[in-house]
């Protein structure tokens, strides 16, 4: 199946721990994103990478660090987890052709910090 996939789907951890979420797309896209959906279901961009280069870095705490080893992968590492980090994290990808940039989303990772 051609898709955007994320692992894990659920992540439950203690405050202060460090965790990573992985994302892979096999759509041949050149741009990947991380979005955060809060408890009120509001979705907001966190990061965007184009051809492995960071192009968007919203006002996200330094504890969040994205890493793109290649165009098909974008991982999110979170240090010193806090209660407020509990949310659903979505990875997305797109192909930034001129005039067309439809984004496709992964299934989400529900992070719960206890």
């Amino acid at each position, binding site marked *: 199946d051609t898709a955007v996939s994320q692992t894990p789907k659920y992540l439950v951890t203690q405050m202060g721990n460090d965790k990573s979420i992985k994302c892979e797309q096999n759509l041949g896209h050149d*741009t990947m*994103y991380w*979005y955060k959906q809060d408890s*009120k*279901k*509001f*979705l*907001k*961009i966190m990061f*965007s990478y*184009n051809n492995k280069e960071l*192009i*968007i870095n919203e006002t996200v705490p330094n504890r969040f660090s994205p890493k793109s080893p290649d165009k098909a992968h974008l991982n999110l590492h979170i240090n010193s987890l806090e209660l407020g980090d509990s949310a*659903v994290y*979505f990875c*997305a990808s*797109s192909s*930034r052709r001129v*005039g*067309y*940039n*439809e*984004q*496709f*989303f992964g*299934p*989400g990772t*529900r992070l719960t910090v206890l």
Partner: protein
Amino acid sequence: GIQVEQSPPDLILQEGANSTLRCNFSDSVNNLQWFHQNPWGQLINLFYIPSGTKQNGRLSATTVATERYSLLYISSSQTTDSGVYFCAVERWASGSRLTFGEGTQLTVNP
């Protein structure tokens, strides 16, 4: 930044009813997408529609870019249509990011 407002925030229908969801945006956009977030949390692409009209089965969408709004029509609604419908827009001048509205929570009762 650009503001995206969706209405109504909540909508309850009986199966078989029709509905119209609205998305207003505060500035010109290059892209506009409609998504359905199903009860399992998946974000499903419905339409990529920066302008014009598209149809896909019982769903159709119209974007009037000059007047800064988009409409999503759902006809003969089914219980599987339940979930949250999001409108999201992109302005290339702001970089490749989607700015989402707060969504319309749709409940279709049998």
